[in-house]
């Protein structure tokens, strides 16, 4: 079930922008549903990318209109948009950095396995198997 339903109190009374806001709400619902189903980890990467693509389009629509009609709060509004993009990018970068660290750990673990298991423990069975006719 959706966590947020679109309602008229969310309307900014401009159809195109309302439609774009609805798209954001559907992303929030998609993430919420996945979290409830314990599958957030499967879609968070996609959601972050979707958000980056979505905001590039949506913020441009808003800002273009503001410039065209000389909206007095344009500068302040643009700062808010920049903050959004930064926040989403930060979450994405943090996750990537953590995964990068983990990939180093995995690599070190595998190297260690190579030198301590394959090259030592497994070597111990060579003669045993060979003398049993397995080679």
């Amino acid at each position, binding site marked *: 079930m959706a966590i947020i339903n679109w309602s008229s109190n969310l309307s*900014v*009374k401009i159809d195109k922008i309302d439609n774009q806001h609805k798209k954001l*709400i559907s992303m*929030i619902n998609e993430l*919420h549903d996945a979290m409830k189903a314990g599958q957030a*980890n499967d879609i968070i990467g996609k959601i972050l990318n979707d958000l980056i693509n979505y905001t590039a389009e949506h913020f441009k629509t808003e800002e273009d209109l503001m410039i065209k009609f000389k909206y007095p709060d344009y500068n302040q509004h643009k700062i808010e948009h920049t903050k959004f993009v930064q926040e989403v990018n930060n979450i994405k970068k943090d996750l990537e950095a953590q995964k990068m660290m983990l*990939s180093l750990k995995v690599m070190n673990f595998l190297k260690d396995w190579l030198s301590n298991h394959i090259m030592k*423990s497994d070597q111990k069975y060579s003669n045993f198997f060979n003398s049993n006719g397995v080679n």
Partner: protein
Amino acid sequence: MPLFVWKNDYSVKVNAMDNQHKQLFAIMDKLHEYMKVGKGSEMLESILTELSTYTQRHFGDEEKLMAQHGYPGIEDQKRAHKQFIDKISEYRNDIKAKKLVSAVQTMDFLKKWLLNHIMVIDAKYADFFNQKGVN
């Protein structure tokens, strides 16, 4: 040039096992290549999935052979194999947990954005644009 290349020194003198060990080298090499081009974080999960599938088969075959011929070191080997499998599943859980944290961060942020931006800051431009004939 591949960094992880199987050499004769690594041979356990049982062909089937050598061939399976070569597959591990190939997986390690793949991870290393991805890391080199900055894609370690992106590919880490598929590498871990591959490792988990690989070990199920390889450790299974190795242990079967040991049991068949009464290899005296089988218990040590089984213990080491289990540690490897546990470690890989620990890494996979670790990624899941990190992604879950990102999902929660994203959700909190989006909820705030909806309440503070769309419902407050965006609402401010509704009348302005409507008066200019944009709706």
